[in-house]
């Protein structure tokens, strides 16, 4: 032991800890660090993506030819229910939470989220909800049979979900799994908004907050307002199923349409909740890879706020065939078309960002470009669906399936892929393999479009949704076969992506702090960031603090940015 007035003994140059499995596991299980939780959200989401993707592959195998016998009707019906439920609640929502939680503190110069323990609570609720849902494969159906997963469709219309028509426990797993995950989602949303309001570093006014953060904050607002209606409807359905209540029991005067209203009051904002991460990511990636600031920053923020508001007023466009009045059918058509306007403005602004720039066509940018074109198609088929008389033909057909896969895969997933590649060096400290990434990208683009473009036509030829097979002679064969072939390319793409991630984490080239020459605060700290994020809490003077540092001659704040 050194005496106080003597110099301390020399410390070793590096301190290496003994690796211990239990310490490693404890670190992950007990963490409240936003970066670890964010990573756990994203990795879990990718695992669910693969599971639900396999379900899709089986469905496409069944539908490749008429009179398919790959799976029994009940099995198929469970597949599309679990595929949809998993993709929405256990891929889309955790990606929202994962990206928000990992990046927001780094981008606003904070050391963690406002409520780190609430953060952990939210993650574990999400994971338990997912496990509970999948436990239904073992535990569903109750005493009357072996386990089975829910088979009521991801939107679980009443009265199909009432006890007489869905005996056993499979629907209850649907209710409880999503209810649990929903609590976690709301917790995460509260955390995001509180963080953005209360934890920004000095100088970072709301006007200087990165657009990524803005978009994810508005996403959190949507969650706060739109998820409780689903929670409420699920409580009501649970009361019906367990306590004999009559919310949706049509025999007792209850209304099946009321479930639809409640579900879609949640369900429509939900799809905007799912697409916002892609909007947020594009607003960071496109400027950096175009070497220009985001065009029309205030308009972009205003557009997202506008989309958020309007999206709360379009829900009944999912119900045009329910027999609403002409006034309702017109009102919701109008509001649904109106929401396309701010969305279109965003596409124009991203394009204008690229216009006049010096585009680096690395993989993140490739995904952004594909997003722009695919989401444009998705938005335009959305306009077609908004025209209610046109929707009377297209509703509940494969046209709708094609439309929402264009928004969700062509839009949301492609945007998320851009983000995963863009921030991979920051999170892992290593670069991914660009060549393999490009192969994966092109395989994904080809596969995705080959699967979903033909399905528009199948829908226009009368092919309804959620059918486990179809007969010869309806004209659907060719389109379905093409769609099924596209799956092969998508599987290859995901496989290449997974291999790229795993290999690069171990053998990738060291990335350094700022491999992309970025402008937001996460690039000012090491890759991966230390637990405390920043050595010193930064002080900023514009929306692009690193641009100001790198370009002291013409910093953004000189131009009022």
């Amino acid at each position, binding site marked *: 032991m050194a005496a106080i007035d003597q110099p301390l003994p020399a410390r070793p140059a590096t301190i290496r800890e003994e690796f211990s499995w239990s310490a490693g596991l404890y670190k992950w299980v007990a963490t409240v660090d936003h970066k670890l939780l964010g990573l756990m959200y994203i990795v879990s989401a990718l695992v669910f993506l693969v599971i639900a993707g396999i379900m899709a592959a089986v469905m496409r195998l069944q539908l490749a030819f008429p009179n398919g016998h790959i799976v029994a009707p009940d099995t198929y019906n469970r597949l599309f229910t679990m595929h949809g439920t998993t993709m929405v609640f256990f891929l889309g929502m955790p990606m929202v939470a994962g990206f928000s939680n990992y990046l927001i503190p780094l981008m606003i110069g904070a050391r963690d989220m*406002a*409520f780190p323990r609430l953060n952990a609570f939210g993650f574990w609720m999400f994971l338990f909800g997912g496990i509970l849902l999948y436990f239904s494969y073992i535990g569903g159906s109750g005493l009357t049979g072996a386990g089975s997963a829910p088979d009521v469709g991801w939107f679980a219309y009443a009265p199909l979900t009432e006890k007489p028509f869905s005996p056993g426990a499979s629907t209850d797993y649907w209710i409880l799994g999503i209810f649990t995950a929903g609590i976690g989602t*709301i917790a995460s*949303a*509260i955390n995001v*908004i*509180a*963080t953005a*309001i*209360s*934890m*920004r570093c*000095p*100088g970072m006014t709301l006007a200087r907050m990165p657009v990524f953060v803005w978009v994810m904050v508005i996403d959190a607002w949507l969650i*706060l*307002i*739109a*998820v*409780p*209606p689903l*929670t*409420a*409807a699920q*409580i*009501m359905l649970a*009361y019906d199923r367990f*306590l*004999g*209540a*009559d*919310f949706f029991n049509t025999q*007792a*005067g*209850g*209304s099946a349409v*009321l479930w639809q209203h*409640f579900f879609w*009051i949640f369900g429509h904002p939900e799809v905007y909740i799912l697409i916002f991460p892609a909007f947020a990511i594009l607003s960071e990636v496109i400027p950096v890879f175009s070497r220009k600031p985001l065009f029309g920053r205030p308009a972009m923020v205003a557009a997202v706020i506008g989309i958020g508001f309007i999206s709360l007023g379009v829900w009944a466009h999912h119900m045009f065939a329910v027999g609403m009045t002409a006034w309702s059918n017109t009102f919701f058509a109008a509001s649904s078309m109106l929401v396309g306007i701010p969305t279109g403005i965003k596409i124009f602004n991203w394009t204008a960002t690229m216009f006049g720039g010096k585009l680096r066509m690395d993989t993140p940018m490739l995904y952004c470009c594909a997003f722009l074109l695919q989401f444009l198609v998705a938005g335009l088929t959305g306009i077609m669906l908004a025209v209610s008389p046109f929707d009377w033909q297209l509703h509940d057909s494969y046209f709708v399936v094609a439309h929402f896969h264009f928004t969700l895969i062509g839009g949301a997933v492609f945007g998320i892929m851009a983000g995963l590649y863009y921030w991979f060096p920051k999170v892992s400290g290593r670069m991914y393999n660009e060549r393999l990434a490009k192969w994966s990208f092109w395989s994904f683009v080809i596969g995705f479009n080959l699967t979903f473009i033909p399905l528009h036509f199948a829908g226009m030829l009368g092919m309804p949704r959620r059918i486990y097979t179809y007969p010869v002679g309806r004209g659907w064969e060719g389109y379905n076969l093409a769609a099924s072939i596209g799956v092969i390319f998508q599987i290859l793409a995901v496989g290449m992506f997974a291999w790229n991630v795993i290999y690069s984490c171990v053998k990738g080239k060291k990335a350094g702090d700022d491999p992309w020459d970025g402008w937001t605060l996460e690039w*000012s*700290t090491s890759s991966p960031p230390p637990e405390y994020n*920043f*050595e*010193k809490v*930064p*002080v*900023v*003077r*514009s929306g692009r*603090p690193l641009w*100001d*540092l790198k370009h002291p001659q013409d910093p953004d704040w000189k131009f009022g940015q």
Partner: protein
Amino acid sequence: MAATVTPANVAAIERNWTLPDRGTVGILLLMITESSLFTIFVVAYLVYIGKSLSGPYPKDVLEVPIISTICLFSSSLTIVIAEKALKRNELGKFKLWWALTVLLGGEFLTATGMEWWKLIYKDGLTISTNLFGTTYYSLVGLHASHVVVGLFFLLIVMTASLTGFPIQHQERRVKFLSWYWHFVDAIWVIVFTVVYVIGR
């Protein structure tokens, strides 16, 4: 990383940088999301007014709970008085008025329980009887469950203050709890109006 601005004004920016308190923001957001939840149950209640295929019907069995409503609203007053006392470090006064708040909240719950006993055993109205039963128990029950949660935390604070825990250092958290309690009261205004005024 180097400062983005000159060292001279960095200190000034840091010193003057104040943001809203995260706890305040958090509790407000919680109230907003809970309001969204309650709204759906209120809408269901309103939609199903008069739609029950068979009785008992609201006007036959519902008695307006004046006393328990007065108690609940009064508890919002007593909690304010308790808070003010805590701010001035008058712990004895705080404990008294806080305990009163707990009692008044407890009265509300007891009265609700008695009302439900009467409805179930005397009038034969359960959640599965008809649409009125379904919507009544779910809406009033949702509110009551929030009262239970509030009362649970009120009791924790009361227990803490009675066992010598330095509650005066937790003024901020006591404030948030009292806001939650006011929120539960505000919700009761709406539930009361919908169930006992509009729905009857």
